[in-house]
């Protein structure tokens, strides 16, 4: 392997493998870990994950492409996931997308040219009572307003 995982990552993966009766069951946690370390899951990462989980690379690919949270390409430094499902939509998610477009030039599915933000629309985030909401990285922001958005994005360099 030319792109072997660093030993720290390998150690953590070995700990994950120990939680399951077979290696394949560790695939999702392994992919989460790799994506967290690398920002996305590249072809070499897929091959390495396949070896560690005792799979053929195509088996990793078919799983990887099924789940919307896994990325095969780098995202911006900050991934913004805006819920536009029904409850958030009733509470104004369209206005949030509109503000992101006008004030920050963000378009759903796109990364800004400076690599700062990637914006995606997502289905229900399970925070419907405090919509509209978005996940910025791992952090959930609720009851969004344009002013609140400005403050949140200003903090994300």
């Amino acid at each position, binding site marked *: 392997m030319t792109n072997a995982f660093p030993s720290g990552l390998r150690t953590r993966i070995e700990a994950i493998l120990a939680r399951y009766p077979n290696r*394949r069951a560790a695939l999702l*946690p392994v992919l989460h870990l790799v994506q967290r370390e690398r920002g996305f899951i590249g072809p070499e990462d897929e091959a390495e994950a396949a070896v560690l989980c005792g799979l053929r690379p195509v088996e990793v690919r078919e799983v990887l492409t099924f789940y*919307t949270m896994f990325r095969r390409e780098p995202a911006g430094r900050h991934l913004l996931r805006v819920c536009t499902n*029904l409850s958030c939509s009733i509470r104004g998610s369209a206005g949030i997308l509109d503000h992101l477009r006008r004030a920050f030039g963000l378009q759903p599915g796109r990364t800004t040219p400076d690599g700062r933000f990637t914006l995606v629309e*997502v*289905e229900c985030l399970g925070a*419907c009572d405090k919509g509209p909401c978005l996940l910025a990285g791992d952090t959930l922001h609720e009851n969004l307003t344009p002013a609140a958005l400005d403050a949140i994005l200003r903090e994300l360099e």
Partner: protein
Amino acid sequence: MAERPLTSTFDPAGPRSLEAYVRGGGYAAARRALAEMTPAAVAGEVKAAELRGRGGAGFPAGVKWSFIPRTDPGPFYLCVNADEGEPGTFKDRHILAHDPHLLLEGIILCAYAVGVHTAYIYIRGEYEEPARRLEKAIAEAAGAGVLGASVLGSGFSLDVIVHRGAGAYICGEETALLESLEGFRGQPRLKPPFPAAVGLFGKPTVINNVETLAHLPAVIRNGASWFLGLGKPKDGGTRLVSVSGSVVRPGVYELPVGTPLRDVVFVHAGGLAPGRTLKAVIPGGMSSAVLGPGEIDVPMDSASLAAAGSMIGSAGVIVIDDAVSMKTVLDRISRFYAHESCGQCTPCRVGTSWIRRIVLRRGAGEGRAGDLDRIVRLAGAMKGRTLCPFGDAAAVPILALVTKFRAELEQ
């Protein structure tokens, strides 16, 4: 004031620590069950309590456990369904945010009753913070001997492992959840065999929702007849009702099973904003049939909502007032199911995407005569013709919407 066994001790400031949970009487039910009750007695109590699954299907938990074949050499597994993806539902997050140990105590009780020594909590990938909080609570519990080789000093062993999903609504379906946990695409399995016979890693498996398990400590503490008395016959206890949409006080409300839907909207959630009128209520998460304003005098329990032509589902109530266009509602619903269909069964894969395309072209002003009938036909072709309940979950709300709000959608 009605009893709220699940939430009355929640601290608005944040999750209760192990110490705070124990100080409030936590783990006493598990301790007593492990020391004084047989597994069969625990299971019997839960069965008598008529605790229906709170995830959506509403199957009685005690009956589900009884399907585990006792002659099987095991191991048996428990999978906790924390995939909470049903739009309009956020009650399991509420439990995880306030009282992760309540879930862990429920897990101990179920594991002991069924004879499980490894439990996996399958939590949706987007719940990153709740997952971290759970990991922390599990570490706390393991450190204090509440979990591990000898649970609460009983000699009964139990390990609990958090397993994160990665963004797929279908993984809330119990057999898709098993596939996903085993490292496959989350595509539902053909039943039978049911998971109780052939489940995780081919072993007998119980799959229960977070809220279902969180009810167990109170059932064991206070007894089946107390729990049953809180709700309705054959449908005991309280429910966490998530209310969102056009209401003044959206949120999670713990209410007796059978609370009138009208009271949920107008009393508990504070009703609509001044000057607005009610247009529709979705009572049980997006997959349930929408009710018109004249149809909400119905008790929120499994049987009553089924009789009203809808379902209690996840008890995710989405309130829609006259400021909301039903075209927007149809747009969101059709987009969700087209996006989330796992693609395994043709009627669902093709049906959801065709419906989506028709809705999109109507939205773009390119609708054709007969489009709504086309949608009805496609939805009808999905219903009852797929491996898992997703086909119905997509068809039912779309059929109800097009039938009940046809005039507005035609405009």
